[in-house]
C-alpha cells in the first residue's frame, strides 16, 4: 500500500484504519513526539492525562509504550502535555523515553470512526484557504477581500447547500414514549423523512398531518371567556386541549380501519341501527381519502414546545427521524463533499463580487450563472444516480401497472 507521499492523503493505513501511530525513539531520552493524525488529539483538560481526573474520559486518545513495538504495550499514565500546531499534535512526555522505545498513540473508537470516509470531504477551513490563494490577489477579479467576509459567505453557503443540495446524513432512532412526543434534535433545521421501523427493520413513512396542529398558546379562560392573568400580569398558559385530544384520539376513526373493538364499542351500525352488522355497516365513510387512509400514523411539530408529536397509534413504536442541519453545528460538520467543492468556489465568487461596489454587472451575471450551473451539477452528482441501479429499477417496467 502506498504511504503518504505528498498527495492529499496524509495518513498511513495504520492511522486511518486502526487509529494508531507508532513512533520509534531514535534518540535516547526523548520526550517530544509529534503525531500526525487527520484528527487533532485533544485532552479533556490540562490534567486529564491522569486516569483519576474527571475529564480523563474526554481525551480522544491514549498513549502506550513498548520496548519492541509488537507486544508488552503499557499505557503511559504519567504526566504529559499536548500542543496542537501546524505540524501535528505534539506530545511532551513527563518521563523521557530510552532509545529503542516505541511510543504509540491510539485514538478512541469515536475518533477513529469520525475519520472514516473523511477523504470524501474537504474542510471548510481548506475551502477558505484555497479560495484566498486561487481567487484573491493581484491581477484577479477579486484583488483583495477580508478573510472574515470569505468566512461569512462560506458558512452561509454551507448552510444553503445543506438545505437543498447536500446529502442528508443525520438520523435519530427513537422510541415513541407514552407522552407521544419527542424533543426536536439540537441541530435540527428541518426534517427529511419520518418513519416507523417494523420488526424487519423496514421503514414505513409517517406523514405530517394537516388534521391538527399545536397551538402556540393556550391561555386559561374564566367562565366569561376572559383570559386569566397571574401575579406577574402575564396570561396564564394552560395545557393545550387540542394536543391532549389528538394524543388520545382513536386513529381508526380517521383511517376507517375498524377492528372488533370498535364494533364492540358500538361504533359501527348497520342500516337498522344495530351493531351486529348483518348486511354490513353503513354510513361511516363514503369513498377513501388517501391522506387519511393509511395505518402508518401521523406526526405534527409543536414549534412552541420544540417537540414532535405522534398520533396515538404510534405509541411504543420505533421511529426514525431523518433531518437536515445547517452544517455548522459541530466542528465535524463544517466540511463539504468534494463533489460540491467547485460549487462552493462559484458561490464565494458570486457572493463577493455581487456585494462589492463598482463591480460591472456583466461580471456579476457571469458568476451568477456559473454558480447556478455548478450547483446544478453538484445536485446531479450527489443524487448518486448509477446506471446499473437505474437499469435494475427499470426492469420493473415489464410488470403490469394496475389501476
Amino acid at each position, binding site marked *: 500500500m502506498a504511504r503518504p507521499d505528498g498527495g492529499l492523503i496524509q495518513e498511513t493505513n495504520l492511522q486511518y484504519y486502526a487509529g494508531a501511530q507508532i513512533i520509534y525513539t531514535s534518540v535516547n531520552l526523548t520526550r517530544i513526539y509529534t503525531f500526525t493524525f487527520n484528527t487533532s488529539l485533544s485532552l479533556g483538560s490540562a490534567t486529564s492525562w491522569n486516569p483519576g481526573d474527571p475529564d480523563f474520559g474526554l481525551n480522544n486518545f491514549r498513549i502506550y509504550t513498548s520496548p519492541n513495538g509488537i507486544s508488552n504495550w503499557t499505557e503511559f499514565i504519567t504526566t504529559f502535555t499536548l*500542543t*496542537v*500546531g*501546524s*505540524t501535528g499534535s505534539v506530545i511532551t512526555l513527563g518521563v523521557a523515553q530510552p532509545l529503542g522505545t516505541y511510543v504509540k498513540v491510539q485514538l478512541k473508537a469515536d475518533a477513529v470512526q469520525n475519520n472514516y470516509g473523511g477523504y470524501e470531504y474537504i474542510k471548510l*477551513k481548506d475551502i*477558505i484557504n484555497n479560495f484566498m490563494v486561487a481567487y484573491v490577489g*493581484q*491581477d484577479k477579479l477579486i484583488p483583495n477581500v*477580508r*478573510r*472574515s467576509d470569505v*468566512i*461569512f459567505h462560506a*458558512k*452561509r453557503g454551507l448552510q444553503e447547500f445543506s438545505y437543498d443540495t447536500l446529502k442528508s446524513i443525520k438520523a435519530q432512532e427513537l422510541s415513541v414514549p407514552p407522552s407521544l412526543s419527542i424533543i426536536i434534535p439540537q441541530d435540527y433545521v428541518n426534517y427529511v423523512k419520518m418513519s416507523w421501523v417494523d420488526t424487519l427493520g423496514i421503514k414505513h413513512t409517517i406523514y405530517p398531518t394537516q388534521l391538527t396542529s399545536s397551538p402556540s398558546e393556550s391561555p386559561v379562560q374564566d367562565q366569561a371567556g376572559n383570559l386569566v392573568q397571574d401575579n406577574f400580569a402575564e396570561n396564564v398558559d394552560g395545557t393545550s386541549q387540542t394536543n391532549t385530544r389528538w394524543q388520545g384520539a382513536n386513529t381508526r376513526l380517521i383511517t376507517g380501519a375498524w377492528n372488533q373493538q370498535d364494533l364492540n364499542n358500538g361504533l359501527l351500525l348497520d342500516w337498522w341501527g344495530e351493531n351486529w352488522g348483518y348486511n354490513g355497516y353503513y354510513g361511516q365513510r363514503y369513498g377513501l381519502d388517501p391522506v387519511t387512509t393509511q395505518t402508518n400514523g401521523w406526526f405534527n411539530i409543536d414549534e412552541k414546545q420544540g417537540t414532535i408529536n405522534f398520533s396515538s397509534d404510534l405509541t411504543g413504536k420505533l421511529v426514525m427521524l431523518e433531518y437536515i442541519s445547517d452544517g*455548522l453545528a459541530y466542528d465535524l460538520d463544517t466540511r463539504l463533499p468534494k463533489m460540491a467543492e467547485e460549487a462552493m468556489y462559484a458561490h464565494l465568487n458570486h457572493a463577493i463580487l455581487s456585494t462589492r461596489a463598482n463591480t460591472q454587472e456583466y461580471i456579476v451575471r457571469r458568476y451568477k450563472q456559473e454558480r447556478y450551473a455548478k450547483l446544478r451539477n453538484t445536485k446531479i452528482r450527489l443524487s448518486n444516480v448509477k446506471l446499473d441501479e437505474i437499469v435494475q429499477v427499470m426492469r420493473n417496467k415489464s410488470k403490469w401497472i394496475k389501476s
Partner: protein
Amino acid sequence: MAINVDTVYKTVLLILNQQQRGYMTPDEFNKVGTQVQLNIFERYADDLNQQYRMPQNDTNYANRVKNIEDNLQFFQRTGATVYVGPHFTLTPTDIYRLGSVIFNGTELTQYSQRSEVTQLLLSPLTKPTNDFPVYLYEQDLLYLYPTTIQAGVTISYLKKPADIKWTYSIGTFGQFQYDENGAGAQGFELNVSEQTNVITRILAYAGVIINDPTIIQVASQEIAQDEQNSKM
C-alpha cells in the same frame, strides 16, 4: 547584496572634490546617508502600490513589482511575541511596519480595527476561532481573538533601516581611513541596484550643505529622470 558604504562615500567625495566644490565629513555623510536611505526605503511601499495597479511582464529582470520586492527583502524579518496579560508584546525593537501575525506557524491572522472586532464578535458566523483568528494592533501591542490564544504567535515585519556609520581610523597623514570593523560600523542595507540612486541623492543633500546650486540642480534632475523612467 547591499551597497558598500565606502564605495558610496568615496564616489561622493570624488564628485564633490572634482572642481574643488567642497568636502563632506564622515559625520555629515553618515547623517545624510541615513536620511537618503530612509527616503528611498519609504518610497518602496508607494511604488509597490503604484506598480500593483499596472500590468506587469513575466520577465526575470524587468518586472517592476518583483524588483521592488527584491529591494524590500533586505528589510523583511520575522520575530517573536510574548504574551503578557491580555495582549502580546513584540520582541523586535526595530519594527518599521508590521506585516503578518502568524498563529501556530501557519495560520494567518486578520488585522482588524477595534470597532470591526466588536462586530465580528457579535456575529456567530464570523466570530474569530483558532482556525481564523483576528488581531488588533494598538500601542505597539497585539490583541488576539479568540482570547484563548496565548502562545504560538509570531510576526513578520519590515525593519527600520539602521543608521549609516562610515567608521574610520586616522591615517599617518591625519586623513580618514575607512575601517569596516570600526565600532558601530553600519553600511547601507539597500539593494546594490540602488547605489546610483543613493549617490545622486547624497550629492543633492551635499549641494545644500556646501551651498552649490549646480550640484543640487544636476542631482535633482538626475533623480527626477530616474523616477520618471522607473514609473512609466
